[in-house]
């Protein structure tokens, strides 16, 4: 597979969209550009919002769908998140971190809140609790595009201990609470808490993410 290839725009999205964000060489430039777009959004520029959407939607949709697994729920949460991004655009400030982190945090939080508020999804949690979380982990590792940045994150994840990786994966992609993760991994809650935090520290250091 050609690692540097941009995925085809089969859905008619403007070229480059999400993939541009990930390119290691242009990360700083991209972050600065997203900040400019946010500023324009705060002044009501809808074209800037459309561009912000095109540059971020694949990534944001990806995490929402991964957590929720239902395209219907994911579409609703996407709509909520982007309307909120537009509404809050003047409230974003660089002090709060990068635009993409701000958006991802909001999207993940809302996806997880949705999982926990929908009763059928709660039932799903319990099913998983008894059948183990391996499938969850496999799904994340399978079929992931081999883009450079993804590769970088994947290597970062691979540098963690298996328990750190599993705890982090179940919590972040599975949308499980730390208590549920503890149950799935048959570990004490305190251990899971520490592993999740250590996992993030390890990943942060491996990725060299600056504060």
């Amino acid at each position, binding site marked *: 597979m050609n690692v540097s290839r941009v995925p085809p725009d089969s859905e008619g999205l403007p070229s480059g969209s999400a993939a541009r964000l990930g390119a290691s060489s242009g990360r700083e430039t991209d972050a600065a550009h997203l900040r400019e777009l946010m500023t324009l959004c705060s002044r009501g520029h809808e074209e800037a919002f459309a561009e912000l959407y095109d540059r971020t939607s694949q990534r944001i949709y990806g995490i929402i769908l991964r957590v929720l697994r239902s395209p219907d729920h994911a579409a609703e949460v996407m709509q909520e998140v982007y309307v909120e991004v537009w509404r809050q655009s003047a409230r974003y400030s660089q002090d709060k971190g990068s635009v993409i982190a701000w958006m991802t945090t909001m999207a993940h939080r809302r996806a997880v*809140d949705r999982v926990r508020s929908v009763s059928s999804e709660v039932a799903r949690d319990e099913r998983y609790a008894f059948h183990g979380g391996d499938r969850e982990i496999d799904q994340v590792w399978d079929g992931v595009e081999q883009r450079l940045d993804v590769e970088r994150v994947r290597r970062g994840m691979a540098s963690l201990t298996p328990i750190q990786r599993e705890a982090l994966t179940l919590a972040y992609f599975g949308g499980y*609470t*730390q208590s549920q993760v503890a149950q799935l991994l048959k570990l004490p809650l305190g251990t899971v808490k520490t592993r999740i935090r250590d996992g993030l520290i390890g990943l942060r250091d491996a990725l060299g993410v600056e504060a």
Partner: protein
Amino acid sequence: MSEIHGAVGSYVVNALDRDEREEFEAHLAVCPTCTREVQEFCETAAELSLLASEAPPPAALRSSILSAISEVRPLPPELLPSEAPAEIAPAEPSPAAAKTAPGERPIDELALRRQQRRTRILSVLVAAVMAAALALGGVVYGLVQARQSQVAQQAAETELLTAPDVKTYTATMKDGGQVSFVVSRSLNRAMFVGKDLPAVGADRAYQLWTLEGKAAIPDNTVPGGGDRKEFFREPLSGVTGLAVSVEAAGGAQQPNPSTIQVITKLAA
């Protein structure tokens, strides 16, 4: 490292349940170390999200979202706390923030951090109110929303809910009603919030108590039935716990162990 600091990773990946999240956010409002770590971890988690990306969202979603935002007005910028209490006037950029270029250390880092923390408290507050709304079936949320009436009470409640050290203790009474104590040591005040309080008859009432060591001081009374909220009359200094009992409507001077519904020990 204390127990609560250790939850920072779980907080960022949203692996805390509602109570744990509330507790951590109350801590976050006063802990710069955890705040910095949350911010760093959010960047890391955003990178982690790359592993989830599989397919682009449906094209129809794009047009639906673009048409939705055309009907929504972006909120005005947040005011800095020093500037005004209301959300009316447009904010000027703060001099400190304006001067701080990326990667450059602000001159008065402490002041800036304090300022950032204030701003952050607003978002923490929104999250805390949302969580409380879920927890209490909208009682606390209702407090914030009901602006038209009880303006003075409202201001006091808002002040309490926005206090940087606000803490919520929730407990279930022997009778089954759910009660919360919203407490701020810095404001020296506490509020009782009761959800679905069991009816106790017209001649009896819920009596609030402040506890100082082994001494119990009678406080305000609250009628039974439905959702109720009441400030404690006593200031909090020296108070080590709060309690609720069921007493004759006029209240009692000494609590009776058999009538006590809830005793909550407060953090110092």
